[in-house]
């Protein structure tokens, strides 16, 4: 192995490391500024509600469908296994716990990332390349306060609400599948009340709030620092979705390890 190859490899690793640190630094500063601006007047309440509508209300249908079928298919999978041990009465609690602790928060976050995180990256990226962000700066309107703070707050507020809906719909989906597979209503629902505790729900909601922050802040960061023309916007959008997905799954693992 020649010395030049080793030097090139070290240079490459160094460049990548610097790049990662630089991105993390800029991301942290941007997110911190956006959160600070949320508590600094004047507030443009209309912008906050508009973003909540985009993140929450407009994502409702996709979240309901995802929750419904996830609960259904999960029930379908576990019902056979549980029957082998005559543990049909555990199907309901297992579906409820899986939905509230993991499937609801994670799948809701992934679906909203695909729908909203990518849209935020594309919208802000397009604003960046068409100089709309510069226009805001010249008009003495801080673009972080005006564009990013409302989006991040919308993510933090709306994801737990969407997750609650997803959890509920998932359990209902599981219920209908269980009925179709011959379980009686009491068998499915009876032990949910006994086994599902409020902590399962709260921890799931805390997770979803964190996911809401991740998907909106990553989407905004990708768009805000987007370079180049249409190609740059495309790369920013793809990058935002990939990074958000990975960050959500890693974040889920870390939070699960510490919270349960």
């Amino acid at each position, binding site marked *: 192995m020649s010395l030049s190859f080793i030097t090139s490899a070290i240079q490459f690793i160094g460049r990548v490391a610097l790049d990662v640190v630089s991105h993390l630094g800029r991301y942290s500063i941007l997110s911190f500024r956006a959160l600070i601006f949320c508590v600094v007047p*004047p507030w443009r309440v209309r912008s906050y509600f508009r973003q909540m509508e985009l993140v929450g209300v407009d994502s409702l249908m996709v979240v309901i469908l995802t929750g419904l079928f996830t609960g259904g298919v999960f029930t379908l999978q576990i019902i056979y296994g549980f029957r082998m041990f005559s543990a049909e009465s555990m199907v309901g609690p297992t579906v409820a716990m899986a939905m509230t602790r993991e499937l609801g928060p994670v799948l809701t976050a992934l679906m909203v990332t695909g729908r909203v995180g990518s849209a935020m990256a594309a919208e802000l990226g397009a604003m960046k390349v*068409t*100089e*709309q962000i*510069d*226009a805001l*700066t*010249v*008009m*003495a309107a801080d673009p972080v306060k005006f564009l990013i703070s409302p989006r991040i707050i919308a993510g933090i507020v709306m994801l737990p609400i969407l997750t609650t809906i997803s959890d509920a719909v998932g359990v209902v989906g599981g219920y209908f599948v269980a009925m179709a597979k011959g379980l009686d209503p009491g068998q499915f629902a009876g032990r949910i009340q006994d086994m599902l505790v409020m902590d399962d729900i709260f921890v799931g909601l805390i997770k979803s709030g964190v996911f809401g922050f991740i998907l909106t802040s990553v989407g905004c960061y990708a768009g805000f620092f987007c370079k180049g023309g249409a190609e740059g916007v495309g790369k920013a959008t793809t990058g935002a979705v990939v990074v958000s997905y990975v960050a959500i799954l890693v974040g889920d693992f870390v939070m699960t390890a510490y919270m349960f």
Partner: protein
Amino acid sequence: MPAPTIVVKDLKKSFGEQMVLKGVNLTLDSGKINFIIGRSGGGKSVLLKHLTALMTPDSGDIFYDLFSIFRANKKELFELRIHMGLLFQEGALFDSLSVGENVSFPAWYHRTMKAKDIKEKASELLKDLGLEGSFTRSVGELSQGEKKRVAIARALILEPQVLFFDEPTTGLDPLLSGVVDELITEVGKRTGATIVVVSHDIAATLTIAHKINLIHDGRVFLSGSPEDFKISKDEVVKEFIFGEDSNKAI
């Protein structure tokens, strides 16, 4: 804030190995129409971004009267920008807002007027610019010329004391270019603002400018009145003003 005199002192800016501004020195006169001309890629837009504090230089400074924009704190820069208007080359209108909302935006954001007064003023500006009845139209429906006029209205709503125009007539037909040139002159007369126009449009430059600054090779090559440029014997000036055929104006 009265219309300021803007002084650029030894401004330098590089991008990697390429030095775009190599020590720009110029004065943009208060209440006058100042043109900045030069070849494409010559650093005009970079200079404009420095003038509006969208970029920071490697060295050098820009003063609005005696006030350095690069040493200003956030509050001072905010105060300055309230009195600044910039027309971007492509308009930079907000796609998610209607025409009226775009024009009203600076006043709405800074809450300088009551909502009713903002709407009245925005409608009046749109009327002055030949866009009466366009208040609720979507930006996507507008032609390039209409977008520029909406962007001009937006730049004017806070009655700025410094107005920057980045290639205001690029992409417009000759008739509309004439309208925009007249508008710049009229705005200058009406508001008394310091106007800075970055342009390739030599005809407009020689017609409406009070002062022209030619940027060449990263520096100000010549600064003077249109008359100074017309009578200049310098090859660089003649080539730029008259094109290759130095006997005929473009």
